[in-house]
C-alpha cells in the first residue's frame, strides 16, 4: 500500500520547506561536524555539537539579504503587497498564532508589559521588543548597523575541505541575522532610508502605528476595483526591512513537548525542524492585497502549513505543498543519479572558461569546477525534483525565499503580464549558480557554511508518541492503543503494514514480515535515529497514487526553467506519465513515497494537507473559508466546521485519528476545491467616469466567487493569447501545432475552435474567460481540481483492520 499521504515532503514556500526534508550528505560533507567539541545545549536544541549549533543559528536567523526582497523587490517587481504591520503588530501578539500561524519568539515582549525594556509602541514602531533592539533601534533611518551575524562563532574548517586549510569563508556578516520581529523566523533590520518626517505625516503624526501607511484607499472612480494603499508607494520607506530565515516555515511546536499556551511558548516547546503545520505564509505574503485581486485569490488560499513554493518563479502550476518535518535524515534513502553541477576544487586551469571553472578573486585556492558525474543523492521535494545533492537543495531554499534575488533570481522569473514571447520575462530562464556565486556575497556566506546547516538538520529525531504521553517505553503505548483500538490491534496493524504498506513506506528491503520498523540505530553518533526511514523515497507515477497531481506537475526543474541547474539529468530523462492528459515529460509527473515517521504528529495528510479535517485558527482566523463542495462542485451550504489549531499531544492525536479515517475511507470524503471567496474583476482599461467620460463599455474580465483557484493558477493564458494571434496571422501553423500534439482530427478541431474564439473575442474581450473554459484541456498545466482524492489504498480493509492499522502507525 503506497500510503503516500501524510505530512509529505519538502517543499516550501517560497521555498523554504523545500529542501527540507531531505538531506543526507555525501561522504565528507558533514566533516565540519566531526570537528565539533562536546555536545552542548542551547535554546535552539539540546545536545547539539558546535557545528550543529552554528547550523541552528543560521537556520533560525539567517536571511542572507532577503530583507530587500521582502521590502522592495517582491512589492515593486512582482506587484504583490505584504502588510508586515498587519502581520507583526505587537498589540495583536496574542492573535498572531491563530491568525497567521506564526510562532511567538519567547525572547520578545510587548512594549509596556512588565519587565519589557520598551515602555511604549512608540519606541519600537509598533513591533515587539526583542533582544538586540536596544542597538538596532538606534540605527533606524541611519547607516552603520553592525549585524549580529558578524558575531557568529564559526567552527573550524573541515580538515578535508578542498578550500582549506586556510579559512577563506565569506564573512559571517553577510548571513544577515538582524533581530527578531517577535515571530520566529521573521527578522527585522533598521531601514537606513527611513524618513521620520514622511513617516509621521503618512501615519497622522503617530510613530507607534503603520495604519496610515497600510490603510487601503477606496477607489473614487471605480468602486469595483481593488483598493490600494501606500504599500505600493516606493517613495515612503518603513522603519524596518523584514527578512525571512528558513526557520519561519520550519520552526514550530515540538510534538513531544508542546506548550501549554501556544501563544506563549518557551524554548523547550519549540523545534527548528518540525515544520510549521500552522503557518499561513501564502496569506502573509498577500497580506497587503485587497481580497478582490487575482493574485490574492489564486495564491492566497493555501491550507495552514502549506504553501505554493513556486508561486513566485511561477510555472503556472498551482501546487501548494506542506512544510514537512526534517527528521531522521541520516537514514533517508539515496539514489545514484547523473549530475551536472559545481564542485569544490583548489585551482582552475590558467586561461580557462570561468563558466566551467572559477576561483574567487583574492582567495587563492577557493575554486569551483562545473562537471558531470554520477553521485548518490536524495530525492528532495515532493516529486524528487531537487536532485543534485542535499547541500545544494538547502541552499536553493535561500534563493526561493529571496536571497540574492536582485543579483541572480528575478531576472529569470516569469512575468505573468508579459504576453510578448520575444521579450524577457515571457517565461522562465535558468538561474545561473556560477553567476550568483560570483555576484552575491550572501550566496557565498551561506554556501561556505552549508555543512553546519546540514549538521543541524541531521540532528532532528522522530517524535515518539510514547514519550509525548510521558510513558516509559513503546510497550506502554501499545498497551494504551490496544485498549483504545481493540485487543491486539497494534500487532494486527503491524502485519497489515508489512504486507500492504511497507513496499512503499519502508526503506528496508523485502520480505517485510519480520522487519523491525522501529529499530533504533546502534551507532552512538546517530543519537537514537531509527534504522527505517519508513519510506523508500522512490519516484512513482502520479497516476498510480492518484492524489491531486498538480504538485507532481511542477515544472521548475525542467530544461530551460528557473531551477534547471538543481535537477539531475536522471530526473529529466524520466518518461512522462502516459495516463495523464497534461504534459508530464522532462521530470514531471511523479511523487516520491514519503516517510511515515511520527505520523501521529503530522495530520492532516497528503502533500497538500487536504486529507483529514480542515484546520484553522478559530473565530479570529479571517483566512479560512470552506473548500467543501458537492458533487457538482458547488460550495456546501453547511460544510463541516474547521478544527481549531491544537498542538497538544491529545489534539494532534485526535486530528491523526480523524485524518486516518478520512484516508482509509476515500469514498466517504467530501470533495474539497479551494475557490475564490470574492469576485475578481480585471480591467483591460481603467474605468473612469466624470462629466466628460461617462463610462467605458465592458473591457473587463470577471471571475465569479467560487471560481476554483487551481483552474486559474494552472492556466497558460499566454499560450492562449499567442494562439489567438497565430489563428489570425498563420492558421496553418496553428493547425500544425495541434495536429502534432493531438493528431489530425482532434488537432484540427482545436485549431478551428481557437480561431472561432478569436473572432468572438474581437467583439467581446471579456469573454476570454469563457474561451479559456472551453479550451481548458488544451491550456491547463493541471486539470486536477479535487484536492483530497486519491491514495485509495486500504479502502478495502475491514473497519477493524483500519483501526488496527491506525493504532500501529501511531507507534512509528
Amino acid at each position, binding site marked *: 500500500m503506497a500510503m503516500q499521504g501524510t505530512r509529505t515532503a519538502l517543499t516550501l514556500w517560497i521555498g523554504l520547506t523545500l529542501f527540507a526534508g531531505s538531506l543526507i550528505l555525501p561522504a565528507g560533507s558533514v566533516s565540519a561536524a566531526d570537528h565539533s567539541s562536546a555536545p552542548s545545549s542551547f535554546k535552539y536544541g539540546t545536545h547539539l555539537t558546535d557545528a550543529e549549533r552554528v547550523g541552528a543559528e543560521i537556520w533560525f536567523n539567517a536571511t542572507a539579504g532577503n530583507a530587500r526582497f521582502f521590502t522592495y523587490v517582491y512589492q*515593486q517587481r512582482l506587484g504583490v503587497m505584504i502588510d508586515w504591520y498587519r502581520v507583526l503588530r505587537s498589540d495583536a501578539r496574542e492573535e498572531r498564532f491563530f491568525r497567521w500561524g506564526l510562532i511567538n519568539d519567547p525572547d520578545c515582549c510587548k512594549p509596556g508589559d512588565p519587565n519589557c525594556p520598551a515602555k511604549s509602541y512608540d519606541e519600537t514602531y509598533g513591533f515587539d521588543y526583542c533582544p538586540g533592539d536596544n542597538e538596532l533601534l538606534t540605527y533606524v533611518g541611519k547607516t552603520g548597523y553592525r549585524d549580529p551575524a558578524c558575531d557568529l562563532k564559526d567552527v573550524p574548517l573541515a580538515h578535508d575541505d578542498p578550500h582549506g586549510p586556510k579559512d577563506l569563508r565569506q564573512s559571517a556578516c553577510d548571513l544577515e541575522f538582524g533581530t527578531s520581529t517577535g515571530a520566529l523566523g521573521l527578522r527585522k533590520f533598521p531601514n537606513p532610508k527611513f524618513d521620520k518626517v514622511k513617516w509621521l505625516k503618512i501615519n497622522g503624526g503617530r510613530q507607534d502605528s503603520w495604519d496610515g501607511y497600510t490603510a487601503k484607499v477606496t477607489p473614487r472612480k471605480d468602486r469595483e476595483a481593488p483598493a490600494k494603499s501606500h504599500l505600493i508607494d*516606493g517613495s515612503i520607506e518603513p522603519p524596518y526591512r523584514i527578512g525571512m530565515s528558513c526557520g519561519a516555515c520550519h520552526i514550530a511546536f515540538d510534538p513531544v513537548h508542546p506548550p501549554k499556551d501556544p501563544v506563549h511558548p518557551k524554548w523547550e516547546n519549540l523545534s527548528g525542524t518540525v515544520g510549521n503545520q500552522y503557518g499561513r505564509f501564502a496569506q502573509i505574503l498577500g497580506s497587503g492585497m485587497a481580497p478582490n485581486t487575482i493574485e490574492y485569490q489564486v495564491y492566497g488560499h493555501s491550507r495552514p502549513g502549506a504553501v505554493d513554493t513556486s508561486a513566485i518563479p511561477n510555472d503556472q502550476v498551482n501546487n501548494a505543498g506542506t512544510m514537512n518535518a526534517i527528521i531522521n535524515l541520516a537514514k533517508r534513502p539515496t539514489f545514484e543519479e547523473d549530475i551536472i553541477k559545481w564542485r569544490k576544487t583548489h585551482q582552475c586551469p590558467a586561461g580557462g572558461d570561468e563558466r566551467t571553472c572559477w576561483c574567487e578573486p583574492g582567495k587563492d585556492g577557493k575554486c569551483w569546477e562545473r562537471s558531470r558525474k554520477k553521485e548518490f543523492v536524495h530525492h528532495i521535494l515532493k516529486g524528487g525534483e531537487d536532485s543534485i545533492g542535499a547541500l545544494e537543495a538547502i541552499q536553493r531554499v535561500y534563493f526561493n525565499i529571496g536571497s540574492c*534575488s*536582485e543579483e541572480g533570481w528575478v531576472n529569470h522569473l516569469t512575468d505573468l503580464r*508579459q504576453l510578448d514571447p520575444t521579450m524577457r*520575462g515571457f517565461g522562465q530562464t535558468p538561474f545561473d549558480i556560477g553567476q550568483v556565486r560570483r555576484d552575491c556575497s550572501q550566496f557565498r556566506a551561506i554556501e561556505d557554511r552549508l555543512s553546519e546547516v546540514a549538521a543541524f538538520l541531521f540532528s532532528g529525531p522522530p517524535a515518539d508518541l510514547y514519550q509525548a504521553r510521558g510513558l516509559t517505553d513503546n510497550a506502554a503505548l501499545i498497551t494504551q492503543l490496544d485498549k483504545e483500538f481493540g485487543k491486539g490491534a497494534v500487532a494486527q496493524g503491524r502485519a497489515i503494514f508489512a504486507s500492504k504498506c511497507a513496499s512503499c513506506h519502508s526503506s528496508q528491503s523485502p520480505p517485510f514480515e519480520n522487519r523491525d520498523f522501529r529499530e533504533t540505530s546502534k551507532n552512538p553518533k546517530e543519537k537514537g535515529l531509527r534504522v527505517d526511514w519508513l519510506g523508500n523515497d522512490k519516484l512513482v507515477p502520479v497516476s498510480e497514487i492518484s492524489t491531486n497531481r498538480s504538485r507532481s506537475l511542477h515544472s521548475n526543474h525542467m530544461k530551460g526553467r528557473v531551477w534547471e541547474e538543481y535537477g539531475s539529468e536522471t530526473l529529466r530523462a524520466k518518461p512522462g506519465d502516459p495516463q495523464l492528459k497534461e504534459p508530464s515529460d522532462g521530470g514531471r509527473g511523479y511523487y516520491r513515497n514519503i516517510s511515515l515517521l511520527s505520523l501521529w504528529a503530522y495530520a492532516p495528510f497528503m502533500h497538500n494537507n487536504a486529507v483529514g479535517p480542515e484546520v484553522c485558527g478559530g473565530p479570529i482566523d479571517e483566512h479560512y473559508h470552506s473548500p467543501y463542495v458537492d458533487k457538482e462542485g458547488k460550495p456546501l451550504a453547511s460544510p463541516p466546521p474547521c478544527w481549531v489549531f491544537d498542538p497538544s499531544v491529545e489534539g494532534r492525536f485526535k486530528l491523526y485519528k480523524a485524518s486516518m479515517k478520512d484516508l482509509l475511507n476515500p469514498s466517504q470524503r467530501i470533495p474539497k476545491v479551494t475557490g475564490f471567496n470574492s469576485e475578481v474583476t480585471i480591467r483591460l482599461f481603467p474605468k473612469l467616469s466624470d462629466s*466628460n467620460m461617462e463610462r467605458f463599455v465592458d473591457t473587463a474580465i470577471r471571475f465569479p466567487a467560487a471560481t476554483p483557484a487551481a483552474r486559474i493558477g494552472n492556466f497558460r493564458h499566454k499560450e492562449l493569447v499567442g494562439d*489567438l494571434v497565430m489563428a489570425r496571422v498563420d492558421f496553418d501553423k496553428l493547425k500544425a501545432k495541434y495536429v502534432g500534439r493531438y493528431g489530425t482530427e482532434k488537432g484540427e478541431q482545436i485549431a478551428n475552435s481557437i480561431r472561432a474564439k478569436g473572432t468572438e473575442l474581437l467583439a467581446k474581450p471579456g469573454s476570454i474567460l469563457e474561451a479559456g473554459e472551453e479550451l481548458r484541456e488544451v491550456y491547463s498545466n493541471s486539470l486536477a481540481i479535487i484536492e483530497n482524492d486519491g491514495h485509495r489504498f486500504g479502502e478495502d480493509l475491514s473497519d477493524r483492520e483500519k483501526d488496527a492499522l491506525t493504532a500501529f502507525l501511531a507507534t512509528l
Partner: protein
Amino acid sequence: MNRNKVITMRHSRWMILASLMVGHTMLLGCTQEPPPVPYAQSGEGYSDKVDLARLEHELPLTPADLMKITPENLKGATQEQVDQIYARLTAGPIPDGVYDGRMFFPKGSSERARLAEIVGGGIKGFIVDRKAATLEHIGEFIWKGKVFYRNEGVLRNRIEDLLILKPIVGPNVEKIQKLDVDGKDAWLLFPAKLYCGQSLLDGRRESVIIDYAFTDDLPGYREMPDVLAGREGLEIRDEIRMVRPGFYLGRAYIKKVFALNFTLYNKAVAEKESAAFLSSETVNEDCWIGNQRMTAMANKPKNQQARLTATR
C-alpha cells in the same frame, strides 16, 4: 454607432494620449545606425536573449562607449539593443531641473508589431495599437519633457500645447502651474514621485523610478487629467538610468507592462559634466548599483571608481 461605442473610442484615444504625455508613444520608421557600442548576440525568443548579468560581465560599457550614445542614434537600435544598453547603465544621480524628453520606438519593429498583433489586433483596446499613429504624433507634439524637483522627490511633465488636451483638462486651465522653458510656456501636469527602486527589466540594480501611483498626494495635483496616469488610471511607472551626465534612458510601463522607451536630455548638464564623466572621476550614484557593479568598481583604480553615495 451607439453611444457607448462612441464613448469608448473617444476614451480609448484619450487614454492613449494621456499615456503618451507621460512618456509613451512610438514612432515607426527610422534609418539610423544603432549606437556603436558592443552588443551580445541574442535570438528573437525570450529564452534566446543573453542573460543580463553575463552581458555586463563580458561586455561592460566604458564611459567612452557611453559618450557614443545619443538620443538620435538610439532610434537606430533594436529593442534588444536598447535593453542591452539599459542593463549596463546605473541609475546615476536623480536628475534635477528641466529635461527635454523624446519618446522613441526602435527600428526593426517587428517585435512590437507582433505585440500589437497580440494585444492590439487580437484584443482591442490595448494601449499598443499601430493604428494610433495620429495620436502618437499628437503626443510627440505636446509632451516635451520632464521637470525634476530632486530635493522634493517630485517630477512634473512639460506640456506645451494645452489646447489639444482641453477636452480632458476641463475648465480653469489658468490654475495649472506654468514654467518658462527657453522662452516658451510649458504647463506642468502629471506630477509623479521620484525614488530609487526596482527595475522591471533588470533587477540587478536600482533605477530612478518615476511613479504616478499616488500622484494625488502631490502639490499641484489636478484630478483631470492627472488621474489618468495614477493608480486608478493606467498605473504608469517610468524608470530611468543615466547614460551620461545630462542624458537618461527611460522605460515606460502601463500596469507593469512595458510600453516604450524615452530619453531625457539636459544640454547644460551634459556639456558641463561630460568631460569629467569621461575621466570617470565624478559620477555620483543616488541608487544602489548592485553587487556585480560594486565588485567591478572595487577592482578599478580609485580614481576610476564611482562616488558611491547610495546605500543599499
